[in-house]
């Protein structure tokens, strides 16, 4: 039964390991699939973009499109799987500014913030030289380019184009056309040492851009031919551009045609923004200011080196964050800042973002930075969805509290990502108007995009879920360690038992045979010695007795070293067999029985109990001349007791029970934390009792309960229920 229990446990553990391995392998294979998640279509129209990750730029969802207002060089927005290999990405693209480009990324990896800080391919429309460009980035940039228009017309801002980029094997094809249904231009390159796989994305360089209808599909060899084939119907100037163009290889020096941003003459009579709050309130006055746009939504804010102002624009062109503008309107002074109403706005130039001014919450709470683009830190205490599709965050910073508001931006990505009690750095325009603060906080930050909120530190690690997780982790580790220890201990004991078996066989083959031989020789000598030599006969008799005794002892030692019957038949049966062997040929009866529910006894414990029982039986046979030997094995919940008794001569009990056998029995009992009792009545018999604690039955469910019980008893010095000891003698 013991073996059956062991086998079942081994099979269960092996099955568990196989299942886990199969699960891990299956999950890994699924993640490595080159087309996992394809085809893909964006959800910008319904305001969702959680699967996109930004590196640089100020990305937000607006009117069903993804928009980057920033003029940052190399702003990227990425999605997809690093395992995607042969696929195409296409989208409608619009450039927002001059002197840059916007387009699509394919097979991207190793991405970071930086101009060309990724490894992969990019195709875009560039209005610097009005070209379609296809290139490879590897923390550096290489490209091939082709005029987008055959007649070298301009690539225009605020106009929609359709762009498609495809990779199949090492063939790359980029194609662009004007929407709707305009003429198409394409480029193809065979990149010999190509990048094999990577994510897809959107990218802009210095111009910002807007993207919509992003579709990513698995590509086939026919897709490239189809993208190129539509061009073949047109004239040769629109034909696909082939790489390895020797002309492009030689022209690697600085360009002759550089880009100088367009600027406009400005009004010399502009006034510092901070001076407008001192304008008379009774007599409306007009004023002209010049500054940099720091926020366009939900309101237009402009800032110069003296402060910021809210503009209520009535006429003029649309502007972006970072534009230098001039505005003329009617001044309405406020307490901390002014408002320019009915403002006519004129953009002077772009690409001059205003850096945020780092202040403390206490400083901002004074109102001194009203309508100014600032950066402040705080701990996130509350988050919620507000009216008009806004996100509202409440912060604490020391003795101050403040609020931040922003559009949902790239969907719920930020809202789900930010954890309460984390420390954040927030950039935005500070406003003290009660329309935003609700008079609940001293100021509110109007945040431009999700990229203006940076997590400095997560919530403290010592939260309830973390502590519970750690406790469970330690528990599982301890379970595993205990299991491993138990197995190793078991193997060690088995090795010892097998070694003993080996010794027993050796002794049987040498000593026992030797003694038998000596005995025969002595018999032969006795036969040859004359009867008159009485003394010699006595000596031979004595020698024969010694040989017989030594042979019997050797046989007993061999039996003691061979516990096979212990494993194969159990402790009780093994002891009963031992007793029968000892009394073989005589009239002594052997009685054995067990009481209680049989439980598996650890190998070391059963081995020691067997030795003690064996010694007790040998002592009984040797000294007591019994008629009956009894062997009883009692099983209880937490202990097991072996009782070996006889009805022989008994002895007078005294305090010190010496003798080598008894010392050995006591030593064995101590080694398994057992108690040894030897009780005897002269003329009535002797009883040897060994009580040993059984280890608790540990399972995955019962382990914590047993550990808790032990710890409780240990610290409260409580004692478990002990079976009564009828005799005073203790081993």
């Amino acid at each position: 039964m013991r073996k059956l229990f062991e086998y079942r446990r081994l099979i269960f553990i092996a099955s568990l390991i196989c299942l886990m391995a199969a699960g891990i392998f299956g999950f890994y294979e699924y993640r490595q699939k080159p087309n996992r998640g394809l085809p893909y279509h964006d959800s910008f129209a319904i305001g969702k973009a959680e699967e996109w990750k930004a590196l640089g730029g100020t990305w937000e969802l607006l009117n069903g499109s993804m928009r980057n207002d920033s003029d940052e060089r190399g702003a990227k927005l990425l999605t997809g799987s690093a395992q995607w290999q042969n696929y195409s990405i296409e989208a409608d693209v619009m450039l927002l500014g001059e002197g840059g480009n916007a387009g699509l990324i394919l097979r991207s990896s190793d991405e970071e913030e930086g101009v060309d800080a990724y490894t992969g391919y990019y195709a875009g429309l560039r209005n610097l030289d009005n070209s379609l460009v296809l290139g490879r980035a590897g923390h550096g940039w290489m490209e091939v380019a082709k005029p987008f228009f055959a007649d070298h017309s301009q690539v225009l801002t605020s106009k929609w184009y359709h762009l498609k980029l495809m990779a199949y094997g090492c063939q790359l094809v980029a194609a662009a056309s004007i929407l709707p249904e305009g003429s198409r231009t394409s480029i193809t390159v065979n990149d010999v040492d190509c990048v094999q796989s990577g994510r897809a994305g959107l990218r802009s360089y210095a111009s910002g851009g807007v993207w919509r209808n992003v579709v990513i599909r698995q590509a086939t060899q026919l897709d490239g031919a189809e993208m190129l084939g539509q061009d073949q119907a047109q004239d040769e100037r629109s034909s696909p551009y082939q790489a390895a163009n020797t002309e492009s290889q030689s022209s690697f020096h600085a360009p002759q045609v550089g880009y100088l941003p367009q600027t406009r003459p400005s009004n010399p009579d502009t006034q510092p923004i901070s001076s407008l709050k001192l304008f008379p309130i009774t007599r409306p006055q007009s004023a002209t200011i010049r500054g940099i746009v720091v926020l366009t939504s939900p309101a237009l804010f402009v800032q110069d080196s003296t402060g910021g102002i809210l503009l209520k624009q009535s006429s003029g062109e649309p502007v972006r964050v970072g534009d230098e503008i001039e505005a003329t309107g009617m001044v309405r002074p406020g307490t901390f800042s002014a408002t320019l109403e009915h403002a006519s706005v004129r953009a002077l130039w772009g690409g001059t973002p205003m850096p945020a001014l780092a202040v403390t919450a206490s400083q901002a709470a004074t109102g001194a930075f009203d309508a100014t683009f600032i950066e402040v830190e705080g701990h996130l205490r509350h988050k919620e969805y507000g009216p008009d599709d806004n996100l509202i965050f409440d912060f604490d910073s020391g003795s101050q509290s403040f609020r931040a508001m922003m559009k949902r931006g790239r969907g719920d990505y930020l809202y789900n990502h930010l954890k309460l009690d984390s420390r954040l750095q927030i950039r935005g325009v500070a406003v003290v108007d009660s329309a935003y603060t609700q008079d609940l906080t001293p100021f509110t930050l109007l945040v431009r995009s999700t990229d203006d909120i940076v997590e400095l530190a997560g919530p403290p690690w010592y939260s309830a879920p973390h502590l519970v997780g750690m406790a469970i982790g330690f528990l599982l580790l301890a379970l595993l360690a205990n299991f491993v220890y138990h197995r190793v201990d078991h193997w060690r004991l088995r090795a010892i038992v097998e070694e003993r078996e080996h010794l027993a066989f050796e002794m049987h083959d040498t000593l026992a045979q030797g003694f038998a031989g000596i005995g025969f020789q002595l018999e032969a000598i006795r036969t040859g010695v004359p009867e008159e030599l009485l003394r010699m006969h006595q000596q031979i008799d004595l020698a024969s007795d010694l040989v017989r005794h030594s042979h019997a002892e050797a046989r007993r030692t061999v039996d003691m070293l061979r516990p096979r019957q212990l494993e194969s038949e159990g402790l009780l049966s093994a002891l009963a067999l031992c007793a029968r062997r000892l009394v073989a040929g005589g009239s002594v009866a052997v009685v054995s029985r067990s009481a209680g529910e049989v439980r598996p006894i650890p190998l070391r414990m059963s081995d020691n109990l067997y030795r003690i029982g064996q010694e007790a039986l040998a002592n009984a046979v040797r000294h007591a001349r019994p008629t009956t030997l009894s062997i009883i094995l009692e099983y209880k919940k937490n202990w097991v007791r072996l009782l070996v008794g006889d009805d022989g001569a008994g002895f007078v009990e005294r305090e010190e029970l010496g003798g080598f056998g008894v010392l050995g029995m006591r030593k064995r009992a101590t080694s398994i934390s057992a108690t040894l009792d030897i009780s005897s009545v002269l003329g009535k018999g002797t009883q040897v009792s060994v009580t040993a604690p059984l280890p608790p039955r540990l399972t995955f469910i019962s382990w914590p309960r047993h550990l808790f019980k032990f710890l409780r008893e240990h610290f409260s010095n409580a004692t478990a229920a002990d079976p009564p000891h009828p005799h005073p003698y203790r081993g």
Partner: protein
Amino acid sequence: MVNVNQRQFWVTRLRTSLRLLCFADLALLLVAGCQRHSPVAIAVIPRTCGTIMWEPEHSGAQATALKLGARIYWNAPTREDDVEGQIALVERVSSKNYQGIVLAPDQARSLITPILRAMQRGLSIVVIGSPLPVPAGERLSYVLNDEEAGGRIAGQRIATILHGTGSVAILGIDSDITGIMTRARSVEQFLVTNYPRIRIIKRTGSFNVPHEQQVAEETLKANPDLDAVVTLTSTSTFGALSALGNVRSGRQIRIVAFDPDSLNFENPHLDSEVLEDTQKMGVEAVRVVVAKIHGQKEPLITQCEPLLVTRENVHSAEVRQLTSMDWRPEHLRRTWGAAP
């Protein structure tokens, strides 16, 4: 007694469990510590990248690294005034497996602490372009633009076009970059010493374009007899050119520009440009880092002389070599061209 046995049981179990855990940890550490031999890795961080000033450094560094069996990591902030971005980049590469850093600092003082921390981690540092106020030493070397020579070159050019007399404004004096201050002083010193009849007007600057235009406009209005302008940065060049387009002075004011964004001489006001030899700096910097890693002694400070580019020599082989943006590895040249 049963209690004692239970305690022994649990103590034995816990002790053995701890031993097993420690053994497993040690084994993991040993495995993690085993590393294959890898080439020298150097992070090259210019002020920004993708410009004709800094991409030549990329080509020089890349070519030298290939020759010496090293590999480089190239990245920079997207704007030259993004000091925080450059600091974050330096800190990031310091904590990774790089043996050296080649840095062109965006701001002299702000980069002191990140560089010192990188040196404490055992990295060899070479600062190029403009120095930090940290003395060179065992782990820190400089490969600098010879600002003194650049100032003399610009001063001589001004003297030539003004024929020794007139007035000149020096715009874009930015104390963020030590080298800019040095070149401004060098121009002034040269003119005062050699051409005392040339009057000098000085104005501070930044990397902010509108601010530079505003400063230039004010300078032009305040000095209607101005003959020439020396612009010390690319933004002050742009600001001055924009201001000259707005202010109709009727005079042919000539500009001598440092660190230009392009070699475009279409604007009639632009006379000449003083270019840093960033390609040579990239070559020298990588060579010095690799030599230091291999324990060789190298000069602590190396100076690279800039070059004056005019309409006459802009198409020369020397200028084309100096402004080469071709960093491409050999095996990719057949397929790809360099950026425009």
